[in-house]
C-alpha cells in the first residue's frame, strides 16, 4: 500500500468515525482542514507604476483547531501559485481567541513578493467572525486584518510622493466565505471572495480572487 493510499484510507476512517459520532455527541474540538483554489487577479506596481497584471489559480490548505465554543484556537494556512511576474508563496500560523461569532486573531508568516526571490516575514492582526445559520449546515465567515513587519520594526515603504518612508503597516486583507457542511458526513464545500493589498519598499501588489474549497469539518453543523 502506497503512502497516498494509506493517507486516503486514514482520512476515510476519520470521516466514517466522525459521521458515526454525529448526532450522538458533540465533537470535543472544532476542527477544519480543507483545500481551496483561488482564481486570482494580481496587479503589481513598482514605485507607483503598474508593472504587471496577471491571473492565476492559487492552491491552498487551511487547518483550524479550536475548542468547541471557539474560545481559543490555532490554525495554519498556505497558498502557492505561479504568475508571469514570479511565483507567489504564502504561509502563516495563527492564533485566535474569542467566541464563535467573533474572534481576534494574530498570525505570523512569510510571503513572497514579485521581483524578488526572498521571503518577507510579516505579522498579521485582525478580526474573524464565523456564524452558523442554525442547524442548516450553512456557515458564514468574514475576516479582516492588517499586515505588519515581521520583525516588528517599521519597514521602509514608498510614500505618496514616491519617496521612502518608514511604516509599520504593510497592507491588509479581507475575505468572506460561505460554507455548507453535509448532514451525514462532516464534509464541507466553500465559496468565498478574497482581496488583499501588500506593499514592501517600492513594491506593491493587490490580489483578489474567487475562492472554492472543500474539506473535513468536525463541528461544522
Amino acid at each position, binding site marked *: 500500500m502506497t503512502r497516498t493510499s494509506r493517507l486516503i484510507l486514514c482520512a476515510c476512517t476519520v470521516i466514517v468515525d466522525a459521521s458515526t459520532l454525529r*448526532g450522538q455527541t*458533540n465533537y470535543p474540538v472544532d476542527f477544519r482542514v480543507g483545500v481551496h483554489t483561488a482564481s486570482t487577479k494580481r496587479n503589481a506596481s513598482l514605485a507607483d507604476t503598474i508593472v504587471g497584471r496577471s491571473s492565476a489559480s492559487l492552491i491552498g490548505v487551511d487547518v483550524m483547531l479550536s475548542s468547541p465554543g471557539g474560545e481559543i484556537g490555532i490554525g495554519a494556512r498556505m497558498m502557492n501559485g505561479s504568475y508571469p511576474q514570479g511565483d507567489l508563496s504564502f504561509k502563516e500560523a495563527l492564533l485566535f481567541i474569542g467566541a464563535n461569532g467573533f474572534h481576534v486573531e494574530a498570525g505570523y508568516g512569510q510571503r513572497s513578493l514579485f521581483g524578488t526571490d526572498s521571503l518577507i516575514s510579516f505579522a498579521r492582526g485582525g478580526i474573524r467572525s464565523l456564524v452558523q*445559520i442554525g442547524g442548516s449546515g450553512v456557515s458564514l465567515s468574514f475576516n479582516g486584518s492588517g499586515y505588519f513587519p515581521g520583525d516588528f520594526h517599521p519597514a521602509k515603504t514608498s510614500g505618496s510622493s514616491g519617496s521612502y518612508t518608514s511604516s509599520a503597516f504593510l497592507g491588509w486583507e*479581507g475575505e468572506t466565505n460561505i460554507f455548507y457542511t453535509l448532514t451525514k458526513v462532516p464534509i464541507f464545500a466553500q*465559496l468565498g*471572495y478574497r482581496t488583499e*493589498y501588500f506593499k514592501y519598499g517600492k513594491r506593491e501588489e493587490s490580489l483578489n480572487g*474567487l475562492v472554492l474549497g472543500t474539506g473535513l469539518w468536525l463541528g461544522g453543523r
Partner: protein
Amino acid sequence: MGYRTALLLFVTIAGTATAQDRPAVQQASPITDMIQRSKDALNNLQYEQARNSVREVLALGRLKRSQEIAVLQVASAAFFPEEPSARIPDSATIYLKRLVRLMPTGPLPVDLSSVGLDSQLVLARISTFGATARPPLEITLKGTETRAAIEVVSTRPARWQLYLSSRAGGAAILLDTLAPATTGKLSLRAHDGLSVVIQPGSYEFRVLSISTSQPDTIMLRFDGTATGSAPTLVDLPRALDPSSFLPERATRAIFAGIVGGVSIGGLTWGLANYARPPKALGDEAKDGRATVVGLAIAAGAIAGGILDHGKRLPDNIRENERMRTGYLKQLGDATETNRSRIGEYKLAIAIDPEIK
C-alpha cells in the same frame, strides 16, 4: 299459622323423631327424610303416595338446590314409572324440565332410572335450557396468576359471566367471562398487577349463564370466603410533565440567515468596490466577480435560514435524557417492588359448593 308453616313444623318434629330412631342417619334433615319416604313409596309401587309426598316437599319452598334436584328426580320417576299404565307423561315432563334447569348433565340415580324415564330426560334436555356450576371447595391464588376454577355446564350454548359481590357491600365486580359454549371453566385471580381483584373477606360468587338461543338467563350463587393479606403497593412516580422538558432544538434561524446573508453578501461586494488599494493599484478595474459571489453568499445564507429546522441543543438533549432515565429508573424500581409484593400475595378461597 299457615298451612306450609304447620307442615314444615310437623316435618321438623317428625324428622327429629325419625332421626332419634335412626342414629345412623343423624345428619339427614327432615326434608331428606321426606324425600326418602317418597322414594320408598315409589319403590313399593305406591305412585300416588309418592306423588303426593313430593308435592308436599316441593310446596315447602326454600329447598336447597341438592334437595330440589333430589325431589324432582323422585317426582319425575313417580309420574313416569316403568309401568306404562301408571305414567302421566305431561306431569313427568313438567318435573323433568324443572329438573333439567338445575341439572343439565348427569344421569338419574340408579334406583330411579329406567329406559323410558332416561329417554324423557334426554328429550327434556333438548328442549330446556339448564345450567349449573361446580366450584372447587378450596383454591389458593398467588400473585397475578389466573386459575381456571369454576366448571360450568349447560344444555345449550350460553355466554358465561362470573361476578363477585362482597358481603360488606358495594357493586359486584366482573371477574371473568366465557364465549358461548356448553362447557367451560371460569377463572379467578387475586391481583391484576395494578390492584387487588379479590380482597380478603366474605363474598357471594355469581355465575350468570345467558342462553344464546333463547331469552333465558340462569344465575347460580355460591358463598365463599377469601383469606389472606392484601399487599401494600408503593406509589408509582408521577408521569413527567411534558412542559418540564427543555427544547431540544433552537428556534429556526430564518432571521440569522437573512441578516447574515445580506451582511456578508454586502460585505463581499464592498470588499471589491471599496477596499481599494491606494495610488495606481487603486485605479485598476474593479473585480465584477465579487458581486456574483456576494449574491451567491446572500442567497445561500437565506436559503439555509429558510430550510433550517433549528440547531440541535446537545446540553438540553442530555438533560432531557437524564430526566427520562431518572424517571424510568424510579418507575422500574417501584414496579419491581410492587411486582415482588404482588407475587407474594396469597389468597385462600373456600367456596360452599351448594348453589343457593
